[in-house]
């Protein structure tokens, strides 16, 4: 297994979508190749940073416009709906 092969399989490796034999080969390579270990680790951190990032609160005006539009159109879309909002 070469470094190029590690990069090619990287997404499936991180998603745990590889068969055990290929996975073992990759981990054997990672044990002896520091550069590949860093690439795997920093790519995983990249995913985690985005995955764990909290979305910013909606700007107040954006939120107000959203809820006004919803209030106006929801009742029109479903005339029989009970206006409990």
């Amino acid at each position: 297994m070469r470094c190029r092969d590690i990069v090619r399989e990287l997404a499936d490796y991180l998603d745990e979508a590889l068969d055990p034999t290929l996975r073992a080969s990759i981990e054997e390579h990672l044990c002896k190749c520091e550069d590949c270990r860093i690439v795997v680790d920093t790519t995983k951190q990249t995913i985690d940073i985005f995955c764990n990032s909290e979305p910013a609160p909606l700007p107040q005006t954006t939120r107000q416009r959203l809820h006004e539009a919803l209030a106006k159109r929801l009742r029109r879309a479903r005339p029989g709906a009970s206006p409990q909002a």
Partner: protein
Amino acid sequence: MEKSPVNSPKLNPVQHHTLPSQVVKADEPELVAAAKSGDISAFDTLVNRYERKIFRLTQNITQNREDAEDAMQEAFLKAYEHLDNFEGNSRFYTWLVRIAVNQALMKLRRRRPNVVSLDEEIDTGEDTMPREIEDWGPSPSDRYEQTEMGDILSKAIGDLDPSFRIVFQLRDIEQLSTEETAEALGLSVPAVKSRLLRARLKLRQRLNPYFRRGANS
């Protein structure tokens, strides 16, 4: 870049990132059922729960504040109007994300008709081998305040080609499965995987100056 074996190398255990079930609260089916029967306040609860995530999604796809806002509004309105078509075979949030993606893509294509063709062949001639290989150390994101961190991430993902950005957004931020992402975008599973790999590597490279050891210290 292969090096001689090192003593007792530490392999960080790779853990599968969080699954979509993490964003779904247990009361969601009840809220959806109530909204279906006409309870607007139940739908309002769902809107309040997901409005931030949906706005981030439409913002990341369109890269335009006005379009993002319109796409978000339309997504929630369409979701409500078509609630009867939601049969509960998937999570409500996944269904909502797909609606929002469609709305955002329409806005993006209208504004940039020559730029976005998700199903076109991506040039694979570019070498994917990472060039900057520097360790980031533990918890690199802790070095930044939340607002600054948000700006760094927004810029990094905003600079990606749309066809990479949208796949990454659905797969790694919204945590749809590869198959769900492929279905939502009308792409093949191999195309999603190929774009996801490139997106992840490009983002890694773009975050490197901020997170490598010694950065921001």
